[in-house]
């Protein structure tokens, strides 16, 4: 064998030169040119009843439709597949009339049987969003355009729940043919998840064109959409893992919108072609105590938890984690949600913290194991946050032993054996306060009641439980007041201590319109257009 290196070099150089000459940005008509969104996909599933993630909210709200939708003020509810609805006085029976024009992407009409099938599958498949249908007792379909849903108990939040993209209506005939099951055995017999990874079966403005995990999620306009057609023909969510790469893509024009730019990175964007807006969000980061977790070296009583909450420098955390681009939050119900007006904001008071610890006989402090997932969420690095908390708590002689772990490991450990102290995040599924009480409150079946150690220590708050029942049966006029009382109870519990509600950075090219924050759906794709 003879190596002809000079020739090889020459040919390689020629090929590279030719490629450079050939490389150019594809040209297409304006609304035909795909709109590119740079974002870390992190999708757990595209099955509407199994999906539960931020990108899932964008996907589902674009390809499926619920009976109702959240309006652009992030509070009001507007009709979608249902053009009218009625609720009985005790909030147990909900009757919906479907829009006669609504059709799925295959052109078949949206009927009451699809609503019944979709809600029953959501409940029975026992995945993350299944809790949204947990109170549903029965669903009747007196005619193809009428749905009557009866609850086990009053559920004043139900109409709000139906704005969550996870409650989108699925074309039951198409999905059933692909192995989807809605009956009581759905959790074990449904085989459609793989099919949903490559197909959508909704009535939304877009349909799924293709999904390549860790690469891209591609939507194309639903040609049979029964509403106003979206302005952009094709939308691509391009996997871009970190904020720096997203910013680079945005500045170079490779992306039209970057969705996970943190405040620090946004300050590095200097391109005049890019618009940066910072808006408040309902997302928040919290720390939590688990009095029943194994490994607690001191009893984390309510008084001790309250003392530790006083030792947290909230303003310092907001500066340290998001450069001041965030707000404190009073209770686990985010600012602006029902019941949060005039709640007392968290206070940093070292002296009070010390005196309360002294009263509890813990003036010399103690050690706490702090297991935290290695995540950067909404611009906040949870491990860095924990380091700041370590400094704060050291001032009251509390030694925080930080143990960073992978997110999956955190999920396992927090379930069993529990972690004494940690930090986590939350984003709303819809506009309504009950979801926060049911997740964070010390009420039966709450996620954090179990994980805080109910059973080993008694954490159930009966007053909070009674108030939740009252709120679920309350009229619109009375609801805010009840949630306010619940929020005060949750503040007193101090199992969950919100530390920052980070602002959201909206970053997009100047020629893009319609970029906004949606509390249920993140970014409504059908509202996007080019100037």
């Amino acid at each position, binding site marked *: *064998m003879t190596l002809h290196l000079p020739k090889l070099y020459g040919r390689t150089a020629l090929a590279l030169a030719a490629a450079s000459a050939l490389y150019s940005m594809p040209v297409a008509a304006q609304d035909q040119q795909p709109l590119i969104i740079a974002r870390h996909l992190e999708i757990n599933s595209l099955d509407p009843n199994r999906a539960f993630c931020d990108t899932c909210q964008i996907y589902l709200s674009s390809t499926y439709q619920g009976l109702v939708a959240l309006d652009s003020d992030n509070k009001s509810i507007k009709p979608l597949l249902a053009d009218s609805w009625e609720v009985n006085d005790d909030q147990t029976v909900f009757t919906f009339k479907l829009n006669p024009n609504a059709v799925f992407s295959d052109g078949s009409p949206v009927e009451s049987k699809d609503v019944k099938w979709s809600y029953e599958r959501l409940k029975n498949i026992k995945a993350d969003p299944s809790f949204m249908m947990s109170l549903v007792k029965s669903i009747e379909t007196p005619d193809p355009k009428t749905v009557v849903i009866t609850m086990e108990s009053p559920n004043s939040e139900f109409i709000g729940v139906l704005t969550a993209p996870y409650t989108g209506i699925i074309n039951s005939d198409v999905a059933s043919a692909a192995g989807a099951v809605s009956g009581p055995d759905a*959790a074990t017999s449904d085989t459609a998840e793989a099919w949903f*990874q490559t197909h959508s079966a909704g009535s939304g403005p877009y349909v799924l064109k293709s999904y*390549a*995990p860790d690469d891209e999620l591609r939507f194309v306009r639903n040609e049979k959409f029964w509403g106003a057609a979206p302005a952009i023909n094709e939308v691509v969510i391009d996997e871009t893992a970190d904020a720096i790469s997203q910013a*680079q893509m945005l500045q170079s024009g490779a992306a039209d919108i970057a969705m996970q730019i943190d405040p620090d990175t946004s300050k590095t964007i200097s391109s005049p072609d890019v618009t940066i807006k910072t808006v408040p969000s309902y997302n928040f980061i919290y720390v939590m105590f688990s009095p029943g977790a194994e490994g607690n070296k001191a009893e984390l009583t309510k008084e001790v938890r309250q003392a530790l909450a006083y030792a947290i420098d909230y303003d310092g955390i907001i500066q340290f984690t998001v450069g001041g681009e965030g707000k404190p939050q009073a209770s686990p119900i985010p600012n602006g949600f029902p019941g949060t007006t005039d709640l007392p904001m968290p206070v940093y008071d070292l002296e009070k913290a010390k005196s309360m610890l002294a009263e509890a006989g813990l003036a010399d402090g103690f050690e706490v194991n702090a297991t935290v997932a290695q995540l950067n969420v909404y611009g906040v690095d949870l491990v860095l946050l924990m380091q700041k908390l370590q400094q704060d708590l050291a001032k009251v002689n509390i030694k925080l032993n930080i143990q960073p772990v992978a997110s999956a490991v955190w999920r*396992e450990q927090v379930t069993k054996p529990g972690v004494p102290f940690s930090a986590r995040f939350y984003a709303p599924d819809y506009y309504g306060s009950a979801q926060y009480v049911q997740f964070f409150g010390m009420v039966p079946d709450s996620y954090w009641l179990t994980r805080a150690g109910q059973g080993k220590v008694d954490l159930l708050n009966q007053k909070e439980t009674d108030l939740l029942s009252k709120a679920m049966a309350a009229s619109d006029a009375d609801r805010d007041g009840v949630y306010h009382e619940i929020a005060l109870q949750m503040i007193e519990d101090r199992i969950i201590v919100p530390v920052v509600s980070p602002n959201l950075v909206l970053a997009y090219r100047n020629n893009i319109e319609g970029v906004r924050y949606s509390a249920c759906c993140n970014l409504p794709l059908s509202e996007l257009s080019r100037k």
Partner: protein
Amino acid sequence: MATYIARRLIAMPLLLLGVITLAFLLSHFTNADPLTSIVGERQMHNETVVAAAKARWGLDQPLPKQYVIYVKNLLSGDFGTSFRTKQPVAQDLLKRLPATLELVIAAMLVGSITGITLGVVAANFRDRAADHFARLFALLGASIPVFWSGLILLYIFSVSLGWLPGPGRLDPRSEAPPFITGMNTIDALIAGDFAKFGDALAHLALPALALGWTVTGIVSRMVRGSMLDVLGQEYILAARAKGAGRLRVLLNHALRNAILPTLTILGFSFAYLITGAILTETIFSWPGIGSYAVEAARGLDQPAIIGVTIVGGAAFLLTNLVTDLAYLAVDPRVKLGSRKAA
């Protein structure tokens, strides 16, 4: 030769079985339960749901039985189903392997061409400015972490100068060419779509440079050392005395004989890059085996983790074989199967 290759190929499944067994055991002895990636966070305390998930994914079986079922399925090409993508792992790997191969081949081209060139130049100009420059360049390539060099290259050539595109394999506004090999550059050429070929090559340039630079460092130092040994040999002097040109002596006489140890390094580098392109693929949003491995590990996706390990093991075994065969082609002194003393 044929017997030798056959013997090596027969040994490969046994070695792979060892890799599979190790990967299977290691992935089951992590300190985390893969159920957390299958069952929703809110349902982890629901025993019915947990039991259903275990049954669905075969996690309710004893470990030895899981192993036997897994190996049996492997024989029919079934690598299991990914907990994360919900697609067959074999399908995921087939989709991603070409992306990694395309990147690694390009990086190897960059690394070997620049490495060999710098090594030859450094040896020829020993202890002079060119040698010092080559040493510095090699040192930087070997010591700068690829996640940093990748970001810097992106900033300079994509953001500041705008000469090359940013992350990804293609402009996201365009779609991949029809799948033939899975390598976008080649598939675009086969399809006769030269604009897409240019786009694919331009996207390939920066990750290939970042990854190839790590190879450059090792190769250039290896070539320089070997060249200095060879250049001191008498036959080089004889060639020069016969009037052969300097470049001809360097490339055809010295380099050909000095290249042998470098082939070993290139072989190992190739296999290493296939499994080690993780950071580059992450920085450049390159949907290959590396990024698949990262996401699989993060999501406790056992079938995917084992699948990637098998591919990595197979890459090392195949590369070893190819490297050994390359020795035969380059150096006729190397004989196969000779056990007799010379």
